[in-house]
């Protein structure tokens, strides 16, 4: 038995243990698939940077060994005939696909409670959600099943679950990672991101999957980011901006305490901490909930049961009736809500008032970031989430409350800038995440800063 096969069997044991605890991080995985990949790798003598590393892949990313269901009944059993560029690249780097990670249906949600196949549990506290939509990916890493995972973001779907589960999540610059094979939700916001047990793990995976792809017209013409460097000894000369809009009065006390401690560590490391303002922050959630559903309403039009996926025709002759039945049965409540919302804001007579105006506000949000970063601020530091992980059922009856859990993360998607979340402490046992945001293409900078903070802060310690 080769080292690769032995490692694959070990990985399978970790996955089995994770799922045996009821985490439900995975929608599909198998020891046989892991071993088969390891055997192939051994035969081909791979020596890539991630050789033998098992990586969980969020189920909205096309992959051919397992179904790609996007957590939806409408794609039940769908096997993609092609693989996402990110998956191809991680395979080329020697990594093995551990399995398909659970997520909210079509990545619409913040808790995995909208997965059509049941929610994942937060390994830190199984009575709480792991966050979402990449909750399965985050839970798999937090449970120790894998050390890294692919997730995707449209409005914080990597960083928010990373924060809830006490791990690291990176949302790269829009265009840094090819979207080819990422099932579209809000195309102008979507980015594949990475999750890892620490900053270096998440950064290494990003280094492998990034870089120009001719199959994605929006991909940046840049070479891959490659391996991250070592953690810097200090942050002398680094200016950390603290946007006051992210620290409102009434901010959760544990979140505030953890943030304050992290800012103190930044100063200890020699960084300058500076108060800044991003005045349009308050419009981010409403803007996001116009742009993302608008694009989603169009992106999800293709699920009509004509070419793939289950068709609910029930002997109906009228094609409209077939669409209604197929989509009515296939989509869950949150997806239906967003399709309706998106269809409405794009409709004749409403387009100018909603979609066009939202695009203008989005420009203002983008300009906020550009202005701050033009003032010699190297990175912004904010909480990742307004609260630690919430309990199951806490927000499902109140969509707005659920949407507001993305208030600090959706700005980076609207602006296209890179951001990451890393654990900065615990509040009553629950992980708290801190967010670093950089200017466009500033991933390497925030990875370096996060590595320094990660060493300087005890993320497992209670903050109050």
């Amino acid at each position, binding site marked *: 038995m080769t080292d690769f096969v032995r490692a694959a069997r070990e990985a399978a044991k970790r996955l089995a243990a994770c799922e045996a605890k009821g985490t439900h991080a995975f929608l599909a995985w198998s020891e046989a698939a892991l071993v088969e990949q390891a055997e192939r790798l051994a035969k081909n003598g791979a020596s890539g940077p991630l050789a033998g590393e098992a990586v969980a892949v969020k189920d909205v*990313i*096309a992959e051919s060994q397992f179904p*790609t269901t*996007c957590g939806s009944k409408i*794609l039940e059993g*769908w096997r*993609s*005939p*092609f693989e*996402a560029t990110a998956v191809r690249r991680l395979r080329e780097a020697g990594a093995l696909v551990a399995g398909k990670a659970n997520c909210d249906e079509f990545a619409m949600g913040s808790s995995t409670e909208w997965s059509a196949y049941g929610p994942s549990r937060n390994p830190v506290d199984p009575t709480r959600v792991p966050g979402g939509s990449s909750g399965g990916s985050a839970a798999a890493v937090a449970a120790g099943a894998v050390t890294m995972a692919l997730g995707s973001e449209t409005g914080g779907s990597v960083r928010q679950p990373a924060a809830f589960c006490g791990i690291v999540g990176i949302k790269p610059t829009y265009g840094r990672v090819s*979207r*080819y*094979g*990422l*099932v*579209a939700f*809000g*195309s*102008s916001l979507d980015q594949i991101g990475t999750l890892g047990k620490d900053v270096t793990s998440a950064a290494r995976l990003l280094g492998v999957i990034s870089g120009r792809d*001719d*199959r*994605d*017209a*929006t991909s940046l013409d840049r070479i891959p980011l490659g391996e991250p460097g070592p953690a810097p000894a200090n942050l002398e000369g680094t200016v950390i901006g603290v946007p006051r809009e992210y620290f409102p009065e009434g901010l959760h006390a544990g979140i505030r305490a953890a943030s304050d401690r992290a800012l103190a560590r930044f100063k200890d490391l020699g960084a300058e901490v500076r108060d800044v303002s991003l005045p349009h922050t308050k419009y981010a959630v409403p803007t996001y909930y116009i742009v993302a559903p*608008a*694009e989603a*309403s*169009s992106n*999800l*039009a*293709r699920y*009509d049961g*004509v*070419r*793939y996926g289950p068709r609910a025709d029930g002997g109906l002759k009228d*094609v*409209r009736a077939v*669409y209604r039945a197929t989509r009515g049965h296939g989509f869950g409540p949150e997806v239906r809500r967003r399709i309706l919302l998106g*269809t409405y804001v*794009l*409709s*004749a007579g409403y*387009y100018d008032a909603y*979609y066009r105006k939202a695009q203008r506000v989005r420009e203002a949000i983008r300009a906020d970031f550009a202005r701050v970063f033009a003032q010699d601020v190297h990175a912004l530091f904010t909480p990742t989430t307004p609260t630690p992980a919430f309990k199951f059922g806490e927000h499902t009856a109140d969509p707005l409350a659920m949407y507001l859990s993305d208030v600090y993360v959706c700005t980076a998607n609207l602006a296209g800038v890179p951001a990451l979340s890393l654990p900065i402490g615990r509040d009553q046992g629950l992980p708290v995440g801190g967010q670093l945001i950089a200017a466009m293409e500033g991933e390497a900078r925030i990875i370096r800063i996060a590595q320094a903070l990660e060493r300087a802060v005890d993320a497992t310690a209670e903050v109050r």
Partner: protein
Amino acid sequence: MSWEPVVGLEVHVQLLTATKMFCGCSSRFGDPPNTNVCPVCLGLPGALPVPNEQAVRLAVRAAFALGCTVHPRSIFARKNYFYPDLPKGYQISQFEEPLATDGKLEFVSAERGPITVRIKRLHLEEDAGKSFHDRVPGMTAVDFNRSGVPLIEIVSEPDLRSPAEARAYLTTLKQVLEYVEVSDCNMEEGSLRVDANLSIRPAGSSELRTRTEVKNMNSFSGVERALTAERERQIAATDRGEEIIQSTMLFDAASGEVRPMRSKEEAQDYRYFPEPDLPPLVLTGKWLAAERAGLPELPAAKRERFQERYALPAADAAVLSASRELGDYYERVVKAGVLPKDAANWVMNDLLALSPDGETLALAPARLVEVIGLVSGGKVSRQAARRVLGEMVGAPKDAALAVAERLGLLQVSDTGAIDGWVRETLEAHPAEVARYKAGETKLMGFLVGRVMKRSKGKADPKAVSAALTEALAR
């Protein structure tokens, strides 16, 4: 009251690219269903479009040929609607910022003489698949080979004033697009499709009244017939005091009538918005200048040049500039030393007569020049040359002279033989000879004809005439 129709046309033209608009699949017509497909043109989850540079180039070329302003920055947009042959549930098109605007097309209207029709916009888009409602009983079959094939849509202003003008516009447009090799404009294969808008108003007025859209026309003559039918329908309705309702009319080529589309089939809100999967289409000034400079001579310019340079009548110049191929053919014949007007006659009267469809040129220019040489050299008669040409189509390797010989069409200029036929003829027609000598000189034609008949058409008519004159003078 006298009514005048106001007509605008929307023309979809398939671009002559090897591959589709946003993927690498072949755009060939007529392949077995669903063989030229991939994740992108099937709209599979996760697939993304990437623009085809050649499609952009052809669209730009068409825009320049139509005198449009080509915008260095244009935006792709999604047109959303549900239909089984539309795999993504939206068509990638252009809406608010199209590739090109403000063009024009000039041609001669039968009613109004030379006119200029303004072109409002020209934009790029992808085609949908094709639905077949009659292949499988009780089912609809869908072929996605056409899905994603590149199209341009050319929208005219409502500047046309009769069904005949609409047809002339289309003929001229087709000619221009074929000249710049942007499309084959084959209506039967669907590479050119026309929708029309028509309203009526009192002749001479400048108002614009409620228009209807006319669809389902599959030939240029069909467009003319459909618009005539719709014009008459609107006039009759207005005369009855009815209001014209904005609607879509379908033309039935078999009955020649138009009928309204069910209102359920229309009333679409396409919810256009900028396509987030594609960045703005940005064309550099240098690239655009190169495309503009690379345009071939257009039909109108060629027509004028032929008139001036070769002193051809307008009608001849129009025929010879109908296609680039024919114009080039003509000029090669002239270059070979044939007088321009003679060359025009040969090409128009003899060569085109041999064409099965009035377009395909049956012989290479050098072959035609060979035959012209036989006539000017007195080897065959002008009449016989036509038969030689016809024979040469089926015998591409045989020299014209050999063909003439095989057909027994070589003229005899040997004076011995001609003198013999003249002598026999004069002996056979003593009465006519006497009348000729008495001053009835117009009988010369009759006598030449008799000699030619006796020679079975092989004698050189000029030599016959000379020999007769000499014999009668004795």
